[in-house]
């Protein structure tokens, strides 16, 4: 893979050039789990869209890179599915940096439309950017504070919730920015979770920078082994139990 950092224009051009079959992720995650991108040893990783629930969509496109080169992939459409449509999806990752974007996204069941959804992570810091994103006709602002929650009740469906600019830092200090995480009910006891534009990176400072295995230092000290749980102190009280 050529080393490059793609501008949006380049992404669009690349999307046209790359047929879907050639760019589906070779290491797509199992359908039952959201992708745990941010694998140890991979300095940066990203994907455009992934969905779990009754409709499983593997992370598309999905990239990771631990070396000095930036790896980029773009696709012009998603794997066939009944709930999501997007025109261009891009993911790129390199040492301590990653970004992902989705263009012209439509999720009719959730009444969600988006012109552009993007997430970026550089050296353990990141954010998201939204252009012309609307949920049930209501425009969502372009820059959301991390982990902003939005919910809307849709007749016949239930409550659709969004987490905008979702930021989660793992125990190794690596940050995952997901521009939109959407949860929608698809029946009694069943929900679908759709992650849109997700980028993961570590701080990438003060480390061996060779192509072999750059380890990113944790932003927070590694947690110590948990303490021993205390023996309980009986509480005065009673509960009629099934004696």
């Amino acid at each position, binding site marked *: 893979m050529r080393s490059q950092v793609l501008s949006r224009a380049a992404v669009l051009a690349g999307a046209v050039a790359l047929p879907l079959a050639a760019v589906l992720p070779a290491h797509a995650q199992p359908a039952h789990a959201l992708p*745990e991108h941010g694998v140890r040893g991979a300095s940066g990783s990203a994907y455009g869209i992934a969905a779990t629930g009754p409709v499983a969509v593997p992370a598309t496109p999905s990239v990771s890179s631990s070396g000095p080169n930036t790896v980029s992939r773009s696709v012009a459409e998603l794997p066939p599915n009944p709930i999501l449509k997007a025109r261009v999806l891009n993911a790129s990752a390199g040492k301590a940096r990653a970004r992902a974007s989705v263009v012209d996204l439509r999720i009719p069941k959730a009444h969600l439309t988006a012109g552009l959804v993007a997430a970026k992570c550089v050296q353990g810091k990141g954010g998201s950017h939204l252009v012309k994103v609307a949920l049930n006709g209501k425009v969502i602002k372009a820059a959301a504070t991390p982990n902003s*929650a939005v*919910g809307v009740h849709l007749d016949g469906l*239930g*409550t659709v*919730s969004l*987490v905008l600019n*979702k930021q*989660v*830092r*793992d*125990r190794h200090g690596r940050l*995952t920015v997901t521009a939109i*995480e959407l*949860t929608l*009910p698809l029946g*009694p*006891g*069943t*929900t679908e*979770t759709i992650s849109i534009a997700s980028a993961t990176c570590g701080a990438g400072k003060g480390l061996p920078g060779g192509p072999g295995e750059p380890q990113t230092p944790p932003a927070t000290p590694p*947690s110590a*082994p*948990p*303490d*021993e*749980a*205390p*023996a*309980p*102190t*009986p*509480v*005065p*009280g*009673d*509960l*009629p*139990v*099934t*004696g």
Partner: protein
Amino acid sequence: MAAATVIAAAAMVMAGCGGGENGGTGTSRGTGGAGTPGDLPQATTYATLKGLPLDDQPFGRADGTVVRPKAPLPISAQAGGPPLATLPDKQLGGPTWVPVVESRAGWSRVLLPSRPNRVTGWIPSSPDKVRTARTRHLVKVDVSDRRLTLLDSGREVGSWRVAVGDVKTPTPIGRTFIMASLAPPKATYSPLILPVGAHSETLDTFGGGPGTVAFHGWPGKDVFGKAVTHGCVRVPADALARLSKAPLGTPVEIVA
């Protein structure tokens, strides 16, 4: 079920035998609800929770990680999902400790003390939200053998013949946890009661309570080795003394 639970809770209050906690929070809620924390059901032994995933490994082995919420926490059906219930920081007047059965960055899936049996949920796991600790203990109950075994760091502390549920009111199987330690003001049959997270599958309510299963003692020894209870596990005094030292949240594995 919810109505029965609320009635049971009301009966508890009237009888003056509650564990120091408002039990009347056990209302059910439909899937997908995203109410404010104040109107979400409380995950207590009195509640029936809906929309949360059941334990998909009811006979799996938890690793001994237990967490205690520092304040009431939202419970979601999946990591980062909308809250469907609240995990209070107290259960029956004592601290809430629940076992972790699955983890993701920033989130823990825990067993809950509510109905239905095996109900689980995801809670935040950051140090500002929960205290994380570890229990070395494990309780195993073999219903058909009518035997309880207590392990500490994998080594057997003791094994006792116990009384289990009879054929009409069986002791529910699957993994659960020690939820509370209660010292009844009038110890009519046991100086201590150790309620677990599970409930009778056949009794919505029992004696005015919500049908919670527990470990406790019994005045006579003739019941041990027999299936004679309404679901609880009656244990000899020595077993009760040992069990009472196991931390809250300690996993309990009940097999048929």
